[in-house]
């Protein structure tokens, strides 16, 4: 089962939970917010970079997501998962960027085509992680995001559905089709 890689703190990480950190930030602690950034910036960046397939835009989206989260931290519902909240913010920002990109370029597809992610290029890539990442990049946006969140959050389908604002059944269908396409792309 894919672990929630970036969400679960490593063994050596401090035991302070997210709720306590948020309370500390609201009380004026800068260090607490630094800790939140340390915990989530990788995961948020990965969601953005997988969705947008552009490092610069992903950095902008990550920064904006943290900025919006910081500004709206007082509205964060106690008991909710911070990861789901910040992923939702980040995903909406990515959607905005994709639709802006679509408006500018006038493309039918909302995302930018990645020429290095084609099947012939995939065949040349030996490393499993590189091949898998390229295969994910080659997926359509809706499947790519579901797989990325599945990778980041594990089998928490309801959390994925919340982030994407989709029904649970749709998330499962998207994930199934995404996995089928991935398997096809990765098969020798």
């Amino acid at each position, binding site marked *: 089962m894919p672990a929630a890689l970036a969400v679960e703190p490593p063994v050596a990480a401090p035991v302070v939970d997210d709720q306590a950190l948020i309370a500390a930030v609201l009380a004026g602690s*800068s260090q607490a917010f630094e800790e939140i950034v340390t915990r989530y910036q990788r995961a948020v*960046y990965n969601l953005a970079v997988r969705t947008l397939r552009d490092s610069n835009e992903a950095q902008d989206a990550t920064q904006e997501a943290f900025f919006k989260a910081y500004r709206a931290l007082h509205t964060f519902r106690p008991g909710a998962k911070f990861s789901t909240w910040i992923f939702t913010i980040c995903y909406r920002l990515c959607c905005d960027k994709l639709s802006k990109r679509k408006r500018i370029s006038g493309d039918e597809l909302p995302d930018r085509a990645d020429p290095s992610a084609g099947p012939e290029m995939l065949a040349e890539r030996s490393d499993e992680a590189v091949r898998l990442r390229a295969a994910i990049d080659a997926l359509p946006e809706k499947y790519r995001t579901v797989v990325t969140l599945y990778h980041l959050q594990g089998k928490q389908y309801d959390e994925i559905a919340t982030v994407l604002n989709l029904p649970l059944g749709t998330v499962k269908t998207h994930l199934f089709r995404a996995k089928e396409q991935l398997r096809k792309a990765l098969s020798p």
Partner: protein
Amino acid sequence: MTHDDDFADLDRMLAALPLEEPPAALRSRILTSTVYRPAPAVHAWEFWLVGTVLALAAWLLWLVATVPHAGERFADLTARLVEQGGLTSLTTLLWLAVGISTAWWISQLSFPTARRVRSR
């Protein structure tokens, strides 16, 4: 056989897939835009206040400028106020000067805290 079993290999690959490292500068970018954001030179409410005052001043200026013989009327009004206020009388001016200087002198007095503590 479930879908999970179908994709066991893929799930294993996904679980083993390391996350991409974000660029090193991203963290400082985030912190600079949030907790370490420099305080703005002018607050929004200050900007609006100055704007409103300027607009009001411009409107008043326009109002005065468009009234016929505005300059003469203004000079008349000022002269009347000076006369009615007794500001043409030397005695009044003298008492006014005494009052202002006394108020200024009192405002310059300082009472050391230690002395007040001792007197309690």
